[in-house]
């Protein structure tokens, strides 16, 4: 008894502490459960049930929705297109973001003006930006109409034109954002490292490849993960600009989910199944990316 006495007082204190900890964590936990866990479970439930949009849940039918999803006539096309778009957008955005960051990093008189002008498009919502470009690209209302007429091309008329026009919108909208991320990374590199390299007689190119890039790795990892995830989930820009056209050539995976759910098939079950497939793919892709960056680091 007497041996146990001191140890009894300790757990009580610990328990109180634990209780307090739970209390502190509750608000976050409530939000995570309500806004993340519950919707996620709902999607998983949908993917395993017959669930027409207009009539609601009709009971379990696993795994029908998944076979239907994979056999959907646009499933393969949309996956391939999404990957193509992701590679294009990621390469362009990262290269441009880094380039712009290097450009504005050097303190000069135009510095602030340049930073602001690159960043302004980021202040516009993606949907608003897409609408802006919808008019800009429209062969009917565009200010470039006479040019389009003279050269006989349209921005959204052919599959490739539609892809490049949409990518241009995304680059315009996000390059400033990635520039800022890169800038933060660049400024995190201590100045004496550059000084040392310079006094060792390294050229600008050598400094960039041997000093800047390796030290920028954490930033590059962050931006790559952000950009790849964002591009794989592309929706608004294509929904507004191309609606998956012309001739179903620009359907992204998320757009396919939307079309299956709300535009015709109206089947939330199959849409949920595609969502689950996308979710699993995203988790895997991000795990691989993070591991790749980490292993190079060590």
């Amino acid at each position, binding site marked *: 008894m007497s041996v146990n006495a001191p140890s009894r007082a300790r757990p009580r204190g610990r328990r109180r502490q634990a209780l307090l900890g739970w209390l502190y964590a509750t608000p976050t936990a409530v939000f995570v459960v309500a806004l993340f866990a519950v919707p996620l479970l709902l999607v998983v439930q949908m993917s395993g049930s017959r669930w*027409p*949009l*207009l*009539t*609601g849940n009709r009971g379990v039918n696993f795994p029908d929705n998944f076979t239907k999803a994979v056999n959907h006539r*646009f499933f393969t096309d949309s996956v391939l297109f999404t990957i193509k778009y992701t590679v294009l957008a990621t390469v362009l955005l990262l290269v441009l973001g880094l380039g712009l960051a290097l450009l504005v990093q050097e303190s000069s008189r135009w510095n602030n003006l340049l930073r602001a002008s690159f960043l302004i498009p980021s202040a516009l919502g993606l949907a608003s930006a897409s609408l802006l470009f919808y008019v800009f690209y*429209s*062969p*009917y*209302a565009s200010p470039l109409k006479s040019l389009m*007429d003279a050269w006989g091309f*349209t921005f*959204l*008329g052919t599959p490739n034109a539609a892809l490049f026009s949409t990518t241009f919108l995304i680059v315009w909208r996000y390059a400033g954002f990635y520039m800022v991320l890169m800038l933060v990374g660049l400024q995190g590199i201590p100045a004496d490292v550059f000084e040392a390299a310079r006094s060792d007689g390294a050229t600008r190119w050598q400094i960039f490849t041997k000093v800047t890039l390796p030290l920028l790795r954490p930033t590059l990892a962050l931006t790559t993960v952000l950009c790849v995830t964002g591009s794989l989930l592309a929706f608004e820009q294509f929904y507004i600009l191309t*609606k*998956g*056209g*012309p*001739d*179903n050539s620009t*359907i992204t995976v998320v757009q396919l989910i939307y*079309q299956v*759910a*709300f*535009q*015709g*098939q*109206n089947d939330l079950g199959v849409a949920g199944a595609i969502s689950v497939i996308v979710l699993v793919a995203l988790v895997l892709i991000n795990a691989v990316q993070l591991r790749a960056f980490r292993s190079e680091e060590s």
Partner: protein
Amino acid sequence: MRRALGRRTALRAMASALVATLALGVAACGGDDDKGTGTGAAEAGPNGVDDGSELTLWTRAPLEKQANLLVNAYNTSHKNKVKLTVVPNDDYVAKVGAAAGSGGLPDLFAADIVYVPNWVNQGLFQDLSTNINGLPFKDSINKGHLSAGTVDGKPHVLPFVLDLSMLFWNKKLFKDAGLDPEKAPATLEDYAAAAKKVQAMKKPGVYGTAAGLNCGGCLVFTWFPSIWASGGDVLSDDGKDAKLADPAAQKVYSTWQDLWKSGAVLPSSESETGPTWTAAFTEGKVGLMLYPATLLSSTPFDAGVAGIPGPGGGASTFVGGDGIGVSKDSKKAAQAWNFLSWMMSEDAQVEVLAKNKDVVSRSDLANNKYAAADPRLVTINEVAGKGDTPVAMNFQQAFNAPNSPWLTLVRNQVLKGGGDLQKENGEITAVLKQ
């Protein structure tokens, strides 16, 4: 609110309560939508209840003008107040679907008539058979709309706004091109010839014709009538087989393919997904076009109107537009019926719709004073009788969806001048059969 009730309304409410008790006593009413609350539409009498309730109504953007006119006229003359929500065309199904799943549908909502068969079947609308069958003019209500909303012989939906596809031509451009501005092209071939003639003027920014070539709904609306006009059919009677590879349809595609190749079609038509498909004609930059009759009042110049011709002649129209009904979630069905019964009355049909140069949904009111003043309205009303409304369960997926097989078929046939027509028609049938 209660205190403000007029004596007449109170009497009417008492009467409806009496009717309700009687109906319950007889138990003749088999409507499972009436949850015994006494506010079912069937018990509310022929005019429903006007007791100052607030009703909600949803419609889609293309019919905003007509919906606003109707709602404003109703609100100024009734105690009930209708609150109108206009939803962009592309988002309408998603919004209704989400609301239907969560039991949050408005009291009244309109639906594109081609979706009505499916939505009625899914139980989104209350059974209005007692009320509609009680209307003295039931037989003169537009048949296409009424039958689209009828399941097991029970009508659920009334025509909200009729939208007919018609051949519109710009009289001034016709005159400039040396065509008779008072004479409509009688066949689809004449239509193509007229478009080429307008194009041949080489006026900057002016084109022969235009179409929504990346908009399945627009193409259904404007090209099906050409097939009907030449005696063809687009669907089997049960709505499960597509007949869009038949000779009549082929003739329509080849005419348009020729028009497209000749450069007489507005170039932006190729990528037109719907939002601006009528804009160029409204601005007077297109010679002639298959165009929605609801836009007659917003067409600022002198335009001629005729039925849509087919290859070799004939005239037909797509009786489109929206049907409206009381939603499954409405707790104010009696008040909602008050709006619907007013909407079908001569007051609303003639003094609101016809006055705005819209088509009335009752054939007995077709020859009203406004129609007499504008012969184009007489033409539209006449062609309305020859028109058709296709009925199919999976209409949206087969035709209207952005990735519909119908759109693939038309784009292959017209823009690319190729494709396997039988296979593409088979794809449509496959979707219709699902």
